[in-house]
Structure formats: C-alpha cells, structure tokens
C-alpha cells in the first residue's frame, strides 16, 4: 500500500516537474486534481487560471467575429474567424494538391491506371456539378441585376431630378444677378449688393454640387456592393472551376507528362535509332546514327532523373523558415557566446567592443538585409554551380528545402539581429559570477580551461540561455521581415505574396499566416524555456 503510494507520488512529482520545466505550469492543478490532492483548492485554481482565460479568449474571438464584418474599407473587409479558418483549409488543400500531382507524376503501372480511373470519375462528377452551378450562377446574376436596377432606378431618378432642379435654380439666380447688375449700372442698387449676391450664388452652387455628389456616392455604393448571394455563388463557382482545372492537370501528370510515360516515349525513340544504327551501311550514316543514339541515351537518362517541379505551399514555407531561423540562430550563438565570455572576463575587451555593440545593436534588420544581400551575393557569383550549393543539394532532407543565396542572406540577417541579446547577456552572466567562486578557483590553482568549464560557464549558463531565448524570439521576428523583403521562400514571402495578390481572400490569408507565425513563435519560446530551466540551479519561475 505504502509502496504504491510512494510510486504514485513519484509519478505525480515527475509530472509536476515536467510541467514546471516546460513552462506549462497552468496545468499543475489539473495533475494535482487527478491525484486527488486538495480537490476544492485545485478546482478553484483551474477555474481561475484556466476556465476564466479560456472564456476571455472565446470572448475575444466572439468580439472579433462581431466587429470584423462591420469594419470595411475600400480595400476590403476585415475577415472574420470563419474566413480565416477557410483560409487555413484552402492553404491545406493547395498543399495536398501539390502532393497529389507529385504522386501522379511519379506513379507507374497499375497504380497509375487506378489513379487515372479515380480522377476521371471525380472529374465527371465535378463537371456535372459545374453545369448545375453555372445555371444557378446565371440565375443569381439575373436576379441580382434586376435587384440592383430596382434599387438604382429611384436613385438615378432622384439624381436626374436634382440636376434639373439645380440647373433651374442656378439659371434663376443668374438672371437675378443679371438684373441686379443692370440695376447697379442704373444706380438703383449698390455694387456691394451685387458682390454679396454673387458670393451667395457661389455658395449655393457648391451646395448643389455637394448634394449631387452625395446621391452619386449612394449610386456608387449600390453598384460596388453586390449582394452576398452573388458573391457566394461566384466564389463557389470559381472554387469548382479551379478544382476541375486541377483534376485536368492531374490527368496530364498521369498521362503525357508522367515521368514513366515520358521515359517510355524517349525509350521508344532510342530503340528506333538503335535499329537505325544496326542497319546503317554508309560511314556517314553510321556516324550520324551513332550520334543520335548517344543523344537519345542521354535524353532517356535525363528524363528519368527529372523530379516534379513542386509549387510552393505554406507548409513547405514553414519548414524553410524554421530551417533558416535555426541556421541564423546557431551562427548567432556561436559568435555571441565566446565573444560574450571574453567581454565578461576582461574589461579591456569589453571596453573595445562596447562602441561596436552600442552602434550596431539598434540597426534595423532591413538595413542588415540589404547589406548582406550585397556581401553574400559576392561570394556566390554563380549559385547553380557553386560547390556550397551543390553540396547542399545532395544532403537528403536539406536538398528539398532548396538552399539558395536568398536563404543565406536571410539567415545572416537573422544572425546579425539575434546576436546582441545573447552577447550582452553572456557578458553580464560571466561578469556577475560570485567573486567567492573565482577565489576558490584561485586557491585550487585551476588553469584557464578548467576555470572556464568548471566555474565560469556553469555559473553563467542561466543568463546565457535567457539571452539565447530572447535571441531566438528576435530572430523569428526578423526572419519574417527579411523573407518578405528578399523574396526568400518562407512565411515572410507568403505574407508578402498574399498582400500583393490583393484578391478577396488575401486578407484572410494574411491573418491566417499571422496565427501560424505566432503559434510557431510560441513553441520556439517554450523550447528555449525548457533548455533554460534545465540548466538553472535556482527554481526561478519561468516568465511567460
């Protein structure tokens, strides 16, 4: 019994420790509750620290859903949560479609036949659906048109009436002015009266114009806001048309653009020329045929080695961004930690580096990007054949990320901006080591290397990791901007492309990307917290 209890306890405290280290302390009462520890207190904590925040977040989402559709500019409407969710599904579908096409391109034999059959069946279905939807669309279009005409006709009538009446009024005023001016000449009226009348006329004229403008705006409003029903049907139809195009493209990749098929065609060509080579009698013909055999062989080989030209999708971009940020982060850490330790150990080094750190720390990532673009570019005059990129394209997983100069200078920008927090924190960590520890080292007559590994690094680690955590956060933020500007494939480029698309779903896509960036950033941060806490001696609370 007591053995069981202690076992349960060790599980419990193990779990609690894990939660604590990973920075998810909020789940602490849940674990305690599961083990039956002071249930009423735990429930109270759960309500306070879990339920209430969840309700609050739900409230925020609700407020977003209510406010967003009401907030519109000429550039578009703020998307509501449902539209953002739709953006997620669309992006995911795009990713799946690329996967499908890739599989189609590579499929062979029976599998290919099966795929063709299934795609053709779906295509048939969708085409039938399209016919129906097209009918519906034209119906909706007609009804909407009549609807718009209906709401427009009183407005245009009003505008026309307004124009006529304004014109009449103005003519009346003009004639009045004419008579008045005659009276001025006669001496029955003063010049002052004339000028005030004219000023009044100008004012009225402007007012009339304003009035007309208002009605015109109303008309424009009606015209520019087609009813929801039409937009919905249009969008449904467009989505279907895109899907049908996709299915046709798949058929293409299963048919004439299929790698196996292309190889087969090239192979047939090869056989033909080989036969020709055998039959050749004259030396000139022999030579020519031999040449074409070699050529055909090369062609077969080349085609067999082709890979599917994948379109970029968001999940690919996420991987690439993560890879880039880690490369940048590692470079930053490799530079920052040694330099930081030197600064912390030696005040002269610190004094030397202080001006450099203080000047370059506040420089914007955009500036760094432009500088690295030039600096890095000079190292890779011909990226296609440069040994570094050739090497990168041979490493299995990394080759799929398509390393290119744009990625290198994005990573350098990340490194440059992520460098400073780690450097400064390391220096601080080293210089604030307890003097007693150093004295002990002196007494023990430890060498420099031992002093470093036994005393200096271990005791400064918590601050070093605190710095690295800030660095990674900074790097992730900088990367998005760097990618947007440099056009290096990644989340930043995704956001920029969406902004440039300016389509009706672009805004929703941008907000979707905002969540993706945020959630990934959150997990990166948690990861650093785990590292930081696992090297800390004290039990200092992880800050959110």
């Amino acid at each position: 019994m007591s053995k069981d209890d202690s076992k349960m306890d060790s599980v419990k405290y193990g779990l609690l420790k894990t939660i604590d280290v990973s920075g998810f302390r909020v789940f602490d009462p849940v674990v305690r509750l599961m083990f039956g520890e002071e249930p009423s207190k735990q429930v109270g904590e759960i309500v306070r620290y879990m339920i209430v925040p969840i309700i609050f977040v739900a409230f925020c989402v609700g407020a977003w859903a209510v406010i967003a559709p009401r907030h519109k500019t000429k550039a578009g409407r703020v998307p509501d949560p449902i539209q953002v969710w739709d953006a997620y599904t669309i992006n995911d579908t795009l990713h799946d479609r690329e996967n499908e096409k890739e599989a189609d391109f590579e499929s062979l034999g029976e599998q290919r036949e099966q795929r063709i059959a299934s795609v053709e069946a779906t295509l048939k279905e969708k085409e039938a659906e399209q016919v129906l939807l097209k009918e519906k669309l034209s119906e909706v279009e007609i009804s909407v048109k009549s609807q718009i005409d209906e709401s427009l006709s009183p407005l245009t009538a009003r505008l026309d009436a307004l124009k006529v009446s304004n014109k009449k009024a103005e003519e009346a005023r003009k004639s009045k002015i004419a008579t008045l001016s005659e009276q001025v000449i006669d001496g029955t009226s003063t010049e002052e009266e004339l000028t005030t009348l004219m000023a009044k006329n100008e004012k009225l004229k402007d007012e009339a114009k304003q009035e007309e403008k208002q009605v015109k705006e109303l008309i424009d409003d009606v015209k520019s806001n087609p009813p929801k029903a039409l937009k919905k049907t249009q969008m449904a139809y467009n989505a279907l048309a895109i899907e049908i195009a996709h299915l046709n493209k798949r058929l293409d990749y299963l048919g004439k653009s299929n790698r196996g098929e292309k190889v087969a065609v090239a192979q047939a060509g090869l056989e033909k020329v080989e036969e020709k080579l055998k039959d050749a009698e004259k030396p000139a013909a022999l030579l020519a045929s031999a040449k074409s055999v070699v050529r055909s062989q090369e062609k077969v080989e080349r085609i067999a080695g082709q890979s599917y030209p994948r379109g970029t999708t968001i999940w690919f971009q996420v991987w690439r961004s993560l890879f880039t940020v880690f490369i940048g982060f590692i470079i930053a850490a490799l530079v920052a930690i040694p330099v930081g330790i030197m600064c912390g150990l030696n005040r002269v080094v610190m004094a030397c580096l202080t001006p450099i750190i203080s000047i370059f720390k506040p420089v914007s990532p955009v500036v760094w990007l432009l500088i690295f673009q030039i600096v890095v570019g000079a190292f890779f005059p011909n990226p296609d054949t440069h040994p570094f990129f050739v090497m990168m394209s041979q490493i299995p997983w990394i080759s799929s990320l398509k390393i290119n100069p744009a990625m290198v200078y994005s990573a350098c920008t990340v490194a440059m901006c992520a460098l400073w927090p780690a450097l400064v924190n390391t220096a601080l960590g080293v210089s604030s080591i307890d003097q007693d520890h150093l004295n002990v080292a002196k007494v023990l007559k430890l060498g420099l290397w031992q002093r470093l590994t036994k005393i200096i690094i271990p005791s400064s680690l918590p601050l070093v990791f605190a710095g690295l955590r800030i660095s990674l956060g900074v790097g992730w933020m900088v990367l998005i901007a760097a990618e947007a500007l440099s056009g290096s494939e990644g989340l930043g480029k995704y956001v920029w492309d969406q902004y440039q698309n300016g389509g009706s779903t672009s805004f929703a896509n941008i907000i979707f990307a905002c969540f993706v960036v945020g959630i990934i950033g959150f997990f990166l941060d948690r990861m650093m917290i785990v590292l930081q806490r696992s090297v800390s001696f004290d039990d200092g609370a992880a800050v959110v």
Partner: protein
Amino acid sequence: MSAKSTFEKLLLCLLAVCLTAAGNNLAFGVEPVAAPEDLPELELEKDELKFGFIKLTDCAPLVIAKEKGFFDEEGLQVEVTPQPNWKQLLDNVINGELDGAHMLSGQPLAATIGFGTKAHIVTAFTMDLNGNGITVSNDVWDKMVENDPALDTPTPQHPIKADSLKSVVQEKMDDGEKLQMGMVFPVSTHNYEIRYWLASAGIHPGMYTTEDIKGITDAQVELSVTPPPQMPSTLEAGIISGYCVGEPWNQQAVVKSIGVPVTTNYDIWKNNPEKVFGVTKQWADDNPNTHVAVVKALIRAGKWLDETDADGKLVNREEACRILSQPNYVGADFEVIRNSMTGFFVFQRSDKREMPDFNVFFKYQCTYPWYSDGVWFLTQMRRWGQISEAKSAAWYDETAKRVYLPDVYLDAAKRLLAAGLIEESDVPWDTDGYRPATSDFIDGLEYDGKKPIEYINSHAIGNKD
C-alpha cells in the same frame, strides 16, 4: 467519357507530332531537300529551370506555357516564382538565382547600357503588346471633369488627353506642392508612357540627370516608383494621386472604387511593346538550345492565348484568367482579371468598353524581338535624360542588336513551322528588324526606328540632340 476520349485524342495527336518531328529528323537525315542540318533535335543543356515573374496579367505566356504543358513538351521542367519587385527580379536573374524572367522592355536595355544595375541581359521573345492603363484618384478625376464638361458623361470620348489635368497640376503648384503620381520602375514602359501622356499635354514630368536619379528635375508632376501590386493601396492612402500600371491593378481601382482609369497605353501608342522574356547573355551563351526550346514553348503559349473562333472572339482567355487567378500566380480575383483580359476594359463602373487589342500576346507578329522596339525605349531614355549624353544613330542600332536576339526566335519559329504548330504568316521571316514608321501616337508624331535622333528632336519637352 468525353473527357477521356478528348484526352486520348490529345495524347495521340501529341505522339503523332512527336513522331513526325522525330521522323522528319531521322528519315530526311541525309536528304538535302528538307534542310536537315538546320533542324537537328535540340540537345537541352539544362532541363530544370526557374523563371521569375511579377504579379501582372501579362506574365500569362510564362504561366500558360507551364500550366498548359508547352514547357513539358519541350522536355523542360519549369518552376515559375513570383518576385517581390522589378529590381529584385533583375538581381535574381543576374546572380543566377533565376534562369530567366518576365521583364520590362526597358530592363534588358538599361542593364546592358549600365543605367541602374549593369549586366548584359538579352531577350529573344517579346511577351505582349499594350496592357497598361493610367488611373487617377477620384478627387483628381472630379476636378478633371470640372475642367472639361465633356468628360461629365458615363462614357466620355476617348482618348482622354492630359489637357484637363493641367489646371489641377497648376493649382497644386500654386499651393507650393507638386502633384505626385506613381509608376513601377525607372526604365519601365509605364514611366515612358505616363511621361509621354503628360508631356503631350505640355505638363513637364521631370528630367533625369547624372545627379538626380529620381527624375524630378524641373518636374511639374513628380513621378515615383511603387511596385505594381501596391499601387491601389498607395493611391488610397493619398501618397500618390494617380499611376500608370499594368493589369489587374487598374481594374482593382475600379472594383474598389478608389480611382478612375482615364486612358490605356493603347491610346498613347497603339500596339506598343510591353514585356519581354529576359535572360543574361552568359546564360544564353551557355544554354543556346534550351533557350530555343523555351522560346518555342513561349511562342506556343502566346498563340494559345490569342486563339480566336470564327467570329474573332478570344476563346482561351477565360481559362487563362482562371489559371492566373490562382494564388501562386497573379492571385487577384477571377472577376477582376477577367475585366481586362477577355477583350474588354472597364474605365468606370458605367463604362465597359470593347478593347480586343488591350492584351495582345501573338497577333501582329508581336512576339518577334523587333530592333525598332528597342530603339524606341532607348530614345525615351535619352529624351528623359537617363542616357546623359548624345549618342549617334548607329549607337541606337548597335545597342538594340546587342540586346535583341531575333536569331534565337527565328530558330524556334522554324521548328514550330516544321511541326505545323504555327503559320508561315505568323513570323516576319525576312525582316531587317525594323517595323515601318508609324504615327499611331496620342500626339500624332511619327516614329521611325531608323531615325532615332530626328525622333528625339521632334518632341517639345525633353532632351534634344
């Protein structure tokens, strides 16, 4: 069922074409009649290519060549990726990140003569004619209407000249400010077009000098660079009061009702060359056969885009719009792209006009790299001071010849003709590269590519030699 059978037919046709092409090669390999040595099978130096484009509808030939499988049929695996702006696109072509790209006509010329980034860029394919518009903000349009009551109808008479803009410009200058307008790149067609349009009404758009690389010296209207996709939002933000840009960014202004397109470049210069397919000289030298294969695919894409039925209706444009509206290509809404690409142009909500030649991708032998097109851009660079010193007429000719490569084009065309994929009349086989003199400009001046100096001197505003 029907889908399958058409598909099979297509496959068979293709096979037949391939076989006949291959057969031609082999069967007549030693016979002198079919000019055999001229057309050996293309040995591709490189078969996985990466091309860049800017999100504009006139990137269509590249996208269509990929999506409709024309690249595939040449044995090319092509990736097309959007670029953030023209400068980055050019840099990526120069540093080898991209094999080639959809470029402004002025870009290869400017790069070759060293205005901006210097690099020898060449082109063997003109992607399209026309396709740009000038849009002004609602405010400016209201004032233009006030100045010229003839514009105050739902469908004003075209072409609309910049005359009614003159007092708006003056008013602004009286307030100590200058009217701001946007164009997409210093050596873009748009820059020269909006300058042409303004200058033809006597409004000075500013000169480039060796010190002033922004081109605003003596300007009455200041032009600044904004990437195409940002034009509508920059206009809406009030930073500029008008812009000259390609599609769909004029239509976007109509749809969002933030501006009014007043004129198109079709009115400024009827059938003016617009974008080219540019590669570096180095790339062209290293990959001569691949270059021909790429041009072949692009010619076929252009032809596909301009396919018409018996009534002259463009039959493939709707499908092209669907493809272009995908988020990885132009990404604007299908309805917006369709507004200008299917033979119409919407000037105001009330003013949708038929403009069958707003986008020309193949007609009028337009895909041929004409020297005279190159010379026109060079004359404009000289006119506005981007070329700082006077050059001889021979220089214009030589420079155009360094950049435009009709030989590559003709090689590709010959192969397509042999395969029966184009007509003999589609290509100017024996031209000297200069189109006949034309005066299809908004101000009626005559342009003859063989007399560049006279042409430069015929303008009222701008440098004279």
